[in-house]
């Protein structure tokens, strides 16, 4: 797009400070995937209706497809890549593996982000809490119950550690 509108934005992405020059209206999702190469955040609808593109912004799960870049200036963005890595998985990621809580896995990143936001504010959620927290994320394969079990399992594992 036209560079005339480019401004400078600084924010944290997965703990690292990033400064970008871009049109402030650019969706965060585009910046993450196409500028920063963080492909784990998925495009699903572009209209915050499905949750596939969720990221944490200051700990809250938000749809990156409709979040303009300007609005995250000075904030901390965490994507699925920032939750954990295979050698040091987030308890949620470990629990998703243990429960084999996916089929196609396309909604998984967004689900993990919603679950991480939930555990941030409610470390010991009930099953109903988990279902409500995941209700903004659509899964077409029908893996909801496995994901709920995984989130409850992760909550237990962090409690005991």
């Amino acid at each position, binding site marked *: *797009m*036209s560079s005339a509108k480019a401004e400078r934005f600084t924010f944290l992405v997965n703990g690292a400070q990033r400064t970008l020059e871009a*049109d402030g209206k*650019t*969706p965060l999702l*585009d910046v993450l*995937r*196409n500028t920063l*190469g*963080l*492909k*784990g*955040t*998925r*495009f*699903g*609808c*572009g*209209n915050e*209706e*499905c949750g*596939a593109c969720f990221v944490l912004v200051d700990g809250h799960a938000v749809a990156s497809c409709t979040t303009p870049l300007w609005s995250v200036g000075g904030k901390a963005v965490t994507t*699925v*890549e920032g*939750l*954990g*890595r*295979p050698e040091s*998985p987030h308890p949620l*990621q470990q629990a*998703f*593996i243990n429960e*084999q809580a*996916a*089929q*196609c*896995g*396309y*909604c*998984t*990143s967004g689900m*993990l982000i919603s679950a991480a936001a939930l555990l941030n504010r409610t470390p010991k959620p009930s099953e*109903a809490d*988990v*279902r*409500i927290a*995941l*209700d903004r*994320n*659509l*899964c*077409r*394969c*029908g*893996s*909801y*119950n*496995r*994901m*709920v079990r995984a989130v409850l399992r992760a909550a237990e594992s962090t409690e005991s550690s």
Partner: protein
Amino acid sequence: MNLAVTSARGTSLPLPGSLRVNRRLAQWLKFHVDGYVEVFSGKVEIGQGIVTALAQIAAEELDLALDQVRMVPASTLVSPDEAVTSGSLSVQESGTALCHACAEARAIYLHAAAARLGVPIETLRVDNGRIVSSSGAQTSYWELADDTLLDREATGQVAPKSSTQHHIVGTSVARRDLSDKIFGRPCFIHDLELPRMLHGRVLRPPSPDATLLELDDAKVRAQASVVTVVRDGSFIGVLAENEAGADAALKALAAGATWRQRASLPDEAALATWLVAQEAETSVVDSKAATTRRPVARTMNARYSRPYLAHGSIGPSCALAQLQESSLHVWTHSQGIFNLRKDLAPALGLAANQIVVEHVQGAGCYGHNGADDVAFDAARLALAVDGRPVRVQWSRADELAWSPFGPAMVVDVEADLDDAGDIVAWRHTIWSNGHTSRPGRSKTPALLGAWHLDNAFERLPAINPPVAHGGGAERNAIPLYTFPAWQIVNHWVLAMPLRASALRSLGAYANVFAIESFIDEVATTAGVDPVAYRLRYLDDPRARAVVERATAKFGWSSRQKSDGIGHGVGFARYKGGGAYCAVLAEIEAEAEIRVRRLVIAIDAGLVINPDGVANQIEGSAIQATSWTLKEAVRFDRERVTSDSWQAYPILRCSGAPVVDVDIVSRPDCPAVGVGEAAQGPTAAAIANAVFDALGIRMRELPLTGERIRAAIG
């Protein structure tokens, strides 16, 4: 030792599974000196776990550790042509082929090892690829690796292991692809980024029957990031240097386009009436005359229907294509890479051998979605820019409104009863479009964009696969019950104002919904418990076993009647010869129907990966619950209006029932697929439970709160 020559299996022809058409062993596997085997399959991962199951089969027959098996992504360059990954056939076709090919490859390598080591072949065993003699001498697949050894046709004469010898097959190994997905690694086609890649968008017409009158693209061409606008008839595309630029250009293109639209769609509110009134090709699917005449005391009949259903993959379709010199490379999440190539060639004016089609994983796929269409879009745009790769990403609206739909259906069922309430004769009549318009099977390319070109290809009606292959609209129309007489008729509706093609289980969803609802209606009339009534007509012990196990686990006989709560059953054997599946449902009738619990017994013969089977059944039952309670493609007389998740709601996490899966293990029966077996039985179990709760028989899908309130009156 499992090196035995089959005699019981008779002559060497035909070869089992997909070996029948991909006969050379080298098409299936290749040993490498570095200590691994590459395994080739034409079946692709669509979220169902097939890559893991096939790796298990190969490791089992070759006596390898799982991590010594590398599954090669499907490509027209290197993979066996296995047509389409569909119909719950991947384990049957690819799994069977691999099982036999690997058993034979193992035998060939044992012969080579015996010669190399100078020991009798009977003294050899294989352990993680090492071939060890009881004398202590040893070699390995890797040491012996020699492509000429497998450069031969399979004979089908080496028996695979018996189920008692299995130690990898039959175990719940973790899915190989899930780790990448859980850690957010780039693993989907959407994530593929190539050097100098351009982003393409295609402006779809506003409605299925619209034609482009005028296009003012001056403003679009002036945009900084726009590389070119492609116009070919009513096909309009744009290429830009970046994705935001492509999206902005698409908006501007839409503003500059003038279309002629026609009211070509039927009245959604009277869809069943419309279907039944259409010209159709009528065929008798099956008929059976009674051997003895019994007097008919009464005749019952009912009409059931389902709407058009959307696939609704969470990831909109995406593809990449690159034209270099005169050869085109396409990256796609198509279910049928060879079939896609077959249709791309004429649509693009290329020869098939100029095109390589390579599979990359997409989001969950439940049938013929937009994957092939977007591959055409990318390929067509790539022709406009020699050398640079082109990525096309569909929008959510494209995916929900332009990919094919599972066709609407009407099913009439009629039964003659004797005075004891037993069924004397059964009649089942279907009205439906064909259930597949996949690429590769038709005279003209079955690709959306190809219908909009200046030199447009004709859009042909969807067809039904042969009944011997499970049929389409008529899938599962023949009941497994031992009724003394029946007549099954299919009216193949040719008019296709909305694009119809394969959706998970094809006609089985509506046919089983109809059969299993109607048998409940008959049982109620006869005053007999619906499970007991079904068992009267089931003599197949495997069928009886799933019904009995599901009802026992559910607690059917001790169920408590309470206000607003209902219990129901549904049963089918998928395609008549596939997996047996019984579903018991408990529902709660509030403002909407809420499915609380599903208990499912499944018999799929030999199970490769029990957790994989459970995962598929849980997921498919939840998807079927979503179809049954909520889903219908919405349209006015011109266009599809359900082009967002708001307009096409699906089940969410808090609406998902508990799903309890009981796998009936039959290691000595052939493995059959499980991805589609639960669709119909789930719908029927829910509808029967609604009747149990409210005394209202719901025969039109979906069973929305609005419909139920209307029925209560």
